[in-house]
């Protein structure tokens, strides 16, 4: 298992800058996701680590040693591709044996390792099948097994679950995570699915337009996003523009906004008069018919604009003062009709502030 370090990595394709000077340090046995929308540079970064792209600038280190001079076959990596890339003219066993043959592993040991890996991915007995005889999920597990059987230093996955249907994707997330934890291999996982990244990662690196905006644990990314883009990409957010008026006796900041006065238990220090953006997650807002009188909680009035039923929750869009719309998550059985006047309550410590 290796520590992976990416230092000031850049990659241009002619005029286009795909990766713009990113830094990343991944500890041994850690799974870090590169999360971002299409075109943000996450796949290009992964391919630079694998050796299929040559960076325009920067360094990539495995355990402190620069690997940029090495071709992909010499980097001792295991890679899982989005469309599995299983060799169609070889059986499952032959696919699994391929990497071992390249490493000249003796036959007896090869057979033992293949048997172990088939057991690990829960596909014992499938050795003589051809890839086209397997389902999508089975193919993906074999692809995973093929990358792991060679016991590489680093595991690289390029949106491996993107081609699976939703239910299977959810199951496979847990499978991939538990497998990775068991084997304890340093892993880089590229995805655009934020739920997936939240479930499987030790840390997430959120990327936009070639740069990393934030690296942190799923909780940090969700609760304390550093920018609007990050907050917007992970889950739903309500953004309220506000100005700092001061602090109250309890130490909470008092902010002035188009929706009224808002209190926030934000931790970092803010200057008086500073213009900021306040973030409140939809699930932090409680809808009430009567004006809430809880001390320290914020109360915003509005009117129910839209309502949609999602099964486990009902989503609301509340029209508030000054054209603002708050997205709120409510219980599925609550009955607020469209057009009803409503109060939105959220606690001061459920807010987060990002500077402008």
């Amino acid at each position, binding site marked *: 298992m290796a520590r992976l370090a990416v230092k000031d990595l850049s990659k241009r394709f002619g005029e286009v800058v795909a990766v713009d000077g990113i830094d990343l340090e991944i500890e041994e046995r850690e799974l870090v996701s590169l999360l971002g929308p299409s075109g943000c540079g996450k796949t290009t970064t992964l391919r630079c680590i694998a050796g*299929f792209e040559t960076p325009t600038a920067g360094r990539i280190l495995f355990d402190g040693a620069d690997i940029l001079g090495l071709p992909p076959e010499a980097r001792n990596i295991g890679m899982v591709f989005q469309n599995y890339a299983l060799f169609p003219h*070889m059986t499952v066993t032959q696919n699994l044996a391929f990497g071992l043959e390249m490493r000249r592993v003796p036959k007896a040991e090869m057979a033992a390792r293949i048997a172990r890996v088939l057991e690990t991915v829960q596909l014992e007995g499938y050795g003589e099948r*051809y890839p086209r005889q397997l389902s999508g999920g089975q193919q993906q597990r074999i692809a995973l097994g093929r990358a792991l059987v060679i016991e590489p230093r680093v595991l690289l996955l390029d949106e491996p679950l993107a081609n699976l249907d939703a239910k299977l994707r959810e199951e496979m997330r847990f499978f991939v995570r538990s497998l990775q934890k068991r084997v304890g291999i340093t892993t880089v996982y590229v995805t655009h699915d934020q739920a997936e990244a939240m479930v499987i990662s030790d840390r997430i690196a959120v990327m936009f337009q070639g740069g990393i905006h934030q690296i942190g644990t799923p909780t940090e990314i969700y609760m304390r996003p550093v920018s609007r883009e990050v907050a917007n990409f992970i889950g739903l957010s309500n953004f309220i523009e506000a100005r700092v008026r001061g602090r109250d006796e309890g130490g909470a900041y008092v902010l002035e906004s188009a929706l009224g006065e808002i209190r926030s238990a934000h931790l970092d220090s803010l200057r008086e008069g500073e213009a900021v953006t306040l973030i409140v997650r939809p699930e932090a807002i409680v809808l009430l018919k009567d004006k809430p009188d809880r001390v320290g909680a914020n109360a915003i009035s509005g009117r129910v604009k839209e309502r949609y039923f999602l099964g486990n929750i009902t989503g609301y869009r509340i029209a508030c003062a000054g054209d603002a719309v708050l997205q709120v998550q409510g219980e599925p059985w609550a009955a607020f009709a469209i057009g009803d006047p409503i109060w939105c309550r959220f606690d001061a410590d459920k807010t987060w502030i990002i500077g402008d």
Partner: protein
Amino acid sequence: MRANATLLLIAPTVGLLVGFLVIPYLNMVVMSFRTPSTSQVFAPGYTFANYLKAIFDPDFYYLRVLRDTMALGVTTTAICLVLGYPVAYHLARTPSRFKSILYAFILSPLLVGVVVRCYGWMIILGNNDGLINNILRDLGLIQTPIQLMYNTFGVSVGLVHIFLPFMILPILGAIQSIDPALEEAAQSLGATRLKTIFRVVFPLSLPGVQAGSVLVFVLTISAYVTPILLGGFKVVIMPTLVIQQLLDAMLWPFGAALAFILSFSGAVVVYLYFMATSWFMKGIR
């Protein structure tokens, strides 16, 4: 209604094939059983004598020529495969801007007529005054000229030159349809570029290799002008003999018998080739 429209669309092509291929072929087969005659194209009556002569007489001569023809076909195909595969791979995988120039180079032999092409080779390969012989003599590397023409070597060079595009293009198509991710997967598992080509690309491109090989083979065993111009009458192959019998000796029935033996043997070789390679292609479908 739809079936009729389809039939109508393919009718002209089928008509062409039947009228100009199937019927003449059958006519040729019938001709091969007719009695030969020196005064007219054929005499009345049918006989097996043509085939008996072709196989046994004299001294299995015609069978030896058949063997030489098949051998020429196999060696030309093999050389085209060895030379053509790397070109096809490079063209399929290279992102360079010179692709279209390379395409043009590959197709260039087809742009020139067969006679002009052969004369071009005669200038280069000429036994006494050819370009190569002159250069080697001027450099002092040889005293007597090397026999590059009027032998199997010269004929092979000319045939490989013209048939290379027929090998390259089907293989190119086959390689282009192989997902590049497969090669990357092989490399990520530790295979060098070369190993990847042998273990992954080549097996998956076999349909293209098959198509190219069969094309070059059948074209070679039926080549007429190139072997005559570059081989003189020293290189005797079946097409030469067939034409001789038909045009010089006016023995149409015998010529027809030789032609049929040639095409039948070619078909057998192609069939055996498909049997052999299909065994390798189990996993690919």
